[in-house]
């Protein structure tokens, strides 16, 4: 698993409480700056496509980063993470279409639904190891996809939730307006990333790494491995469902494709593209994949060949994600510089 371990090269030890607090402060600052930059974009560039692009980045980015909590931090390779993306989109869409709830209420309820689903499915899945965990999550994903297709009166079957998702104004926010949706998506993205960052850097986050590196040793020192895995499975599922909510708002609907295995596959691909050893890797991967996708579909209908060649470049050429590559390259340069200094 060595290629997939987050923070592997840094060899960082658990930071003391004081350090952690200041690190959290720094994260908060970065998040605030990031949010400010994102919000200012539509005012600097009048491109509607940029707005769309960032909304999609928010949806996929939250999804992919949450998957990295499982893959990179805990060593749980889930092939079925897309089920939460789909679950989020469908729960939210159905709540809005059928119940007349306000958007925040539907949002919270969606999180709850995903958490419950994650709890039930996770309780079964996290017992299994490695490739079998991957397969059983995939099976659950396909099961949910089958249910969505079959439960036609509720889900609309293969045609998805039709007729648009109503978006009543709340607190002066009108998500029917693309700019409002943009700012809301950015806010969800930044808050979601910030929360996941805090989870990753918390004692719980270090427990995850310990479970990943040596589950037996972790259980010797009194960690309930099953409960830890389940907890992160549920948390990751909730963040993934937020991605689904954003996507459902973007396309104003929910479609069975959102719960298909290909979404999980894209999530994994994004992680490999951006790299899983840094927190920001999946986000970088998201931006890369979306640019790649958008450019390739503009230029050719043989999208498969292009994407295939790019994947091969990353898998066989770089042999790691972009951020992993950058981080290692930077570390090497720094090492060289410091040895030069000491030798002179």
């Amino acid at each position, binding site marked *: 698993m060595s290629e997939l371990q987050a923070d592997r090269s840094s060899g960082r030890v658990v930071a003391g409480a004081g350090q952690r607090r200041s690190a959290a402060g720094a994260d908060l600052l970065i998040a605030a700056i990031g949010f400010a930059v994102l919000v200012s974009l539509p005012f600097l560039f009048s491109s509607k496509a940029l707005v769309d*692009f960032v909304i*999609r980045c928010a949806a996929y980015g939250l999804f992919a980063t949450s998957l990295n909590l499982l893959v990179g931090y805990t060593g749980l390779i889930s092939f079925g993470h897309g089920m939460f993306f789909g679950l989020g989109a469908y729960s939210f869409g159905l709540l809005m279409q059928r119940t007349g709830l306000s958007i925040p209420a539907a949002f919270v309820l969606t999180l709850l639904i995903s958490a419950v689903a994650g709890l039930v499915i996770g309780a079964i899945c996290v017992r299994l190891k490695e490739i079998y965990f991957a397969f059983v999550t995939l099976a659950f994903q396909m099961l949910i996809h089958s249910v969505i297709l079959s439960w036609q009166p509720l889900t*609309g079957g293969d045609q*998805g939730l039709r*007729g648009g998702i109503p978006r009543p104004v709340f607190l002066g926010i009108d998500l029917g307006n693309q700019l409002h949706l943009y700012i809301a998506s950015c806010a969800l993205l930044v808050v979601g990333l910030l929360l996941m960052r805090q989870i990753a850097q918390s004692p719980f986050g270090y427990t995850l790494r310990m479970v990943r590196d040596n589950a037996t040793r972790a259980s010797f020192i009194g960690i309930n491995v099953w409960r830890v895995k389940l907890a992160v499975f549920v948390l990751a599922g909730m963040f993934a469902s937020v991605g689904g909510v954003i996507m459902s708002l973007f396309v104003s609907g929910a*479609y069975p494709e959102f719960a298909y295995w290909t979404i999980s596959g894209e999530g994994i691909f994004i992680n490999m593209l951006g790299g899983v050893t840094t927190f920001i890797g999946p986000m970088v991967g998201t931006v890369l994949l979306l640019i790649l996708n958008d450019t390739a*579909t*503009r230029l*050719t*209908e043989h999208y498969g060949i292009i994407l295939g060649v790019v994947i091969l470049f990353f898998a066989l050429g770089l042999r790691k994600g972009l951020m992993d590559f950058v981080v290692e390259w930077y570390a090497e340069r720094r090492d060289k510089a410091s040895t030069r200094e000491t030798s002179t």
Partner: protein
Amino acid sequence: MTIESKTGESKMGINRRATLALMGAGAMTVAAPWVARAQAKAIKIGMPTILSGRVAQLGTSSRNGVMIEVEKLNAAGGLAGRPIEMVVRDSKGQPQEAARIARELVNTDGCEMIIDGEASSGSFAVQEVARDLGVLCVHTCSEASSLTADPKQRIPNAFRCARQGIHDSIAGGNYAAAIAKAKGLKKWATCSPDYAYGRDTTAEFVTYLKHFAPDVEIISETWPKLFQPDYTEVITRILQAKPQALYSALWGGDLTSFIDQANLYAMFTQMEVFAVNMADYTALTVVKNLPKGIHSGNRYIKTFPATAENAAWGDAYKAKYKEYPTNWSWQNATAIMLLNEAAKKAGSADGKKLAEVLPGLTVKCPFGADGTVTMRAEDHTIVGYAIGWGTTIPTEPYVPEVKAGDWKQIFELEAQWKKSKGYA
């Protein structure tokens, strides 16, 4: 050089070169895709469709149908004097991609209207984009009735230029009932793909079959999944029910697989088969052992309507693309004819103005039952296209005799159907 090309070269050549060119210049082209381009005098029409995967043929033959008319139109001066530039993109059959591409085509590429070559859920996703952006949108592949029939779905700027299952089913029900009565076929089975189109069309067919032949009874229903590779379990189930007749809304490769596999069980000697999607060249030319006498609705067939215009169009298409047109081809070609006629009437290529004149517009068209088709004003969907049923033979002309459907009857029953659905 991309698939946005307007040239008439064979699509294969273009694609290969585009691919190679892209491989070479990939990095350069990543440059900010959202930089808006200056608008040329040409009018750009965006077209999200499916060009990859199992139904890639939907996209390629749709594009062919569009291009053959666009080239004619451009040679004759274009849409209200502006040459058309088609921008065709592959959604890979994913609704979120279809929505994204449709938005991008309008917002970034400066397309002034959308021809939506998406099927099923993709067309609903594009419909939402059209609702949001207010851009003129013509759906050319989605046969799902609710897309335009349901007032909750309908929007003033979107039109459907495609068959509707309800029309096929009324014509088919009438045709099948006559045969059922003549041959005493009382016990029926159905076998249709388990998705909206398959379910709706089958339910409607059964409704009208029973309407015209009340003593018909459905004794078995089977619902294979879309793109299911193996139908053995379905076939044996139908055989065990021992029906006298079978209705199927399977299409394309699924239909030919079903026929090939059912042939092994000699199914076609044991019952009359009504397969609404059989009489399409995609299926007819591909099946090697086509059983004689399958009843089918027409999809595209150059001998029906039996006019010189239709035959000429089919031959021209075949000469150009080395294959016969599909049902999607004529629907897409008709969309361009309609837009052209609307532009003439409005004296402009402006989408808003076209949307105003399109409702109720009748256009001369080789695929019309009487040489014309009409964009019905009340629900923005085309009517009056050639519709009929006949029996197939394994060689050209494949369907020697097509019994034309009666549009008057279709309208009557369709109106009742809409009422029953709460659409009207």
